[in-house]
């Protein structure tokens, strides 16, 4: 008999629920990756980074919205799970998806760099900035979206909240870049602070969502 690990069980549910969409996303990422390996184009590189890092957490968030349409959430509460385990699994799913995309991006990019010297120069100049920009937006967006989503504030308004949170997250990340540039902070530090701020926001968001979830009726 296997030792039970509820959070892992919920992550597994999350992965299985998103499997179909992840497969499609993986095909898209691989297609872009192969195009990048063949062409070494900096435009493809920018698009590839965006898709590889941005799409996986996006899929997880979409699937979380879809779950609300069934009684899955209510059923989870009646299982031997603490409510905070359930909330933790939301956040872990998104962090894992973001970093899995990041890893995949890194592997394909690594291979690309072997074949394209020109690309190497471009990546060195921009990689840290663009990767931190995308990770920052994905995590910030999740941080904003999950507490709102957990209140079930109009499940049918999911798309509106999704777009709103994406806009706010992108705005915050751009603001950090703009403010950093104004006071002459080195780009690497700006990029790092984007990720640190996004992760901090995600931790704060987790505590807020846990508090909301603890008092919710399902």
């Amino acid at each position, binding site marked *: *008999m*296997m030792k*039970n*690990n*509820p959070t*892992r*069980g*919920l992550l*597994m*549910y999350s992965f*299985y*629920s*998103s*499997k*179909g969409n992840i497969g499609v996303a993986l095909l898209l990422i691989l297609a872009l990756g192969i195009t990048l390996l063949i062409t070494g184009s900096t435009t493809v590189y920018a698009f590839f980074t965006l898709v590889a890092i941005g799409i996986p957490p996006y899929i997880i968030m979409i*699937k979380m919205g*879809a*779950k609300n349409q*069934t*009684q*899955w959430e*209510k*059923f989870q*509460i*009646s*299982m*031997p*799970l*603490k*409510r905070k385990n359930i909330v933790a699994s939301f956040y872990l799913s998104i962090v894992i998806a973001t970093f899995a995309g990041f890893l995949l991006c890194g592997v394909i990019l690594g291979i690309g760099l072997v074949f394209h010297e020109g690309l190497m120069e471009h990546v060195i100049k921009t990689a840290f900035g663009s990767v931190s920009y995308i990770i920052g937006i994905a995590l910030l967006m999740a941080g904003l979206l999950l507490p709102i989503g957990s209140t079930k504030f109009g499940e049918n308004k999911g798309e509106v909240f999704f777009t709103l949170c994406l806009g706010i997250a992108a705005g915050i990340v751009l603001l950090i870049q703009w403010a950093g540039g104004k006071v002459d902070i080195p780009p690497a530090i700006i990029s790092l602070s984007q990720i640190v701020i996004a992760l901090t926001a995600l931790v704060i968001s987790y505590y807020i969502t846990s508090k909301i979830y*603890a*008092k*919710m*009726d*399902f």
Partner: protein
Amino acid sequence: MNAILEIQGLAKTYESSDFRLNNISFSVPSGAIMGFVGENGAGKSTTIGCILNTLIKDSGTVRIFGKEMTADSTDIRDGIGVVYDTNCFPEHLTPVEISSAMRLIYSKWDNGLFKEYLRKFKLPEKKKVKTFSRGMTMKLAVAAALSHHPNLLVLDEATSGLDPIVRDDILDVFLEFVQDENKSILLSSHITSDLEKVADYITFIHQGSIIFSEKKDVLKYNYGVMRCKSAQFAAMDKEDMLAYRKHDYQIDVLVADKQAASKKYRDIVIDNASIEEIMLILVKGEK
């Protein structure tokens, strides 16, 4: 006989509606099936929500397996199987995937038993839940609820909307489950024929309050419906009536002691009361 589930003074109000669960108290003995009956909106699902902690109760206590149920009582919930009236699983999952996640959540998850139920219910292992019919979905939910060896099954309208054949299959599984004296079922339903078939006890809820919680045999053998004409009804002692319902040419009177009533009112016909009739007279009749 020890009670597996004991509810005392349970209350719940909603900010968004006038509905209120009023001081609910009843218990489910071990080795028994408790039929929890009431019309739509009577408070069955709210009571079950408070039992399982999916709803936060205002007051009262819920004790399961002798321990008080709280938000953190994962050990208690580990011993409860739950089936709701609709699909609970994410639609893109297959039964095999459900099983591999469930074994990480329930300490006594039994994959062999789950597969046995899948075979028994003729459910495909590798098809997505979204391709299942309603009957198949409910069978899957029952299979999952039973496959971690629970001691209490809580079924919230689990048989509603199913055809008689599927319902019969599922009810047989429930009867088999309570063969073990340490196991019990709380079966909420408004299909009274299901409860007539399997329940040992009946708890009737109406407008958020418990009207009665009795052994089914007590209802069956003691309760009766007197078919009265207007004059007979007028001559009856009001204290003998639990409730009555007027029809065009007849008044049905529900009595708690059929034997005593038949001796007292020799000229009035008294029939056995079915659960449905008891429910109808109590809900739609007057007191």
